[in-house]
């Protein structure tokens, strides 16, 4: 009986640790802190291994480096940490109450109007991975998603039309954001910068990126480094709603 209780306690404790690590890694994935975090994890692992093997001197050196790297991490990323802690209380939980269908409908309407007028657009929809790093590269807006706003942003010869926009939750977080270009050599040379940026972002994060081509007016979606071309209204809505609410498909 006692053994069962300690096993359950162990599983619960590992579960809590898993949740904390998962949250930290997800948060860091969209920011520049990911490289530092990788370094800290590597140093921690070496520290544990050397301790187990009994290499006292190496272990002493790594103990010092570990303590310093934690301090450096706290100083360098104090802004990100502050923002992350604030988000625990604000953003994540509010996702349960989002009106996804409304947001999807606004995005779809905007995309099709832009497509008709052959106005280029690049829209990144944040999912689990934070896009803070990309939001910081643009101009923060923090406005409610609506099709008129999206159309206005991408209208040519306006100050905000260059770059992409990031939709985080039910808000347009930023505009004029710079996304990384794909480095995949297999990508067709016919693709323009907008499509390459969409692919690049979808390779690095789990974001859904919607692209409206300036040349053809075609609407494409980039997910996990894959591009789906020429979507009609129905299929765009279906793709967005399936990905925005992953459980919906299974509940049918």
């Amino acid at each position, binding site marked *: 009986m006692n053994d069962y209780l300690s096993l359950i306690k*162990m599983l619960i*404790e*590992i*579960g809590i*640790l*898993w949740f*904390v*690590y*998962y949250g930290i*890694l*997800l948060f860091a*994935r969209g920011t520049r802190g990911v490289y530092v975090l990788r370094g800290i*994890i590597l140093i921690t*692992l070496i520290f*544990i291994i050397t301790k187990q093997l009994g290499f006292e001197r190496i272990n002493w050196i790594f103990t010092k480096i570990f303590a310093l790297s934690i301090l450096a991490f706290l100083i360098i990323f104090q802004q990100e940490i502050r923002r992350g802690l604030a988000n625990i209380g604000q953003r994540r939980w509010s996702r349960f109450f989002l009106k996804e269908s409304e947001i999807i409908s606004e995005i779809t309407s905007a995309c099709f109007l832009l497509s008709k007028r052959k106005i280029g657009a690049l829209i990144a929809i944040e999912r*689990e*991975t934070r896009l803070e790093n990309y939001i910081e590269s643009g101009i923060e807006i923090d406005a409610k998603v609506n099709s008129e706003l999206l159309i206005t942003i991408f209208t040519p010869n306006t100050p905000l039309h260059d770059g992409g926009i990031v939709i985080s939750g039910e808000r347009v977080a930023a505009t004029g954001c710079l996304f990384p270009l794909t480095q995949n050599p297999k990508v067709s040379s016919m693709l323009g910068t907008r499509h390459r940026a969409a692919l690049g972002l979808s390779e690095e994060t*789990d974001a859904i990126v919607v692209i409206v081509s300036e040349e053809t007016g075609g609407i494409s979606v980039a997910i996990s480094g894959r591009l789906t071309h020429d979507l009609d209204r129905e299929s765009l809505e279906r793709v967005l709603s399936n990905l925005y609410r*992953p*459980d919906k*498909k*299974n509940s049918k």
Partner: protein
Amino acid sequence: MNNWIINNFWIKVVSLILAVITWFYVNEELIKEKHMTRQLYKSSVMSQVQSPSYDKKPVK
């Protein structure tokens, strides 16, 4: 449910590995700490028992 597992699969796996390593490491440290406390307690009791003043009965 299936999507939940597949989504960010490698981050979930890495988090699980880190969680298990951390748990076992901390568990081992706690056992060591308990052992050390017990030894310290034992040695302090032994030193008290062995001290010459311990056997002396109070003078009435």
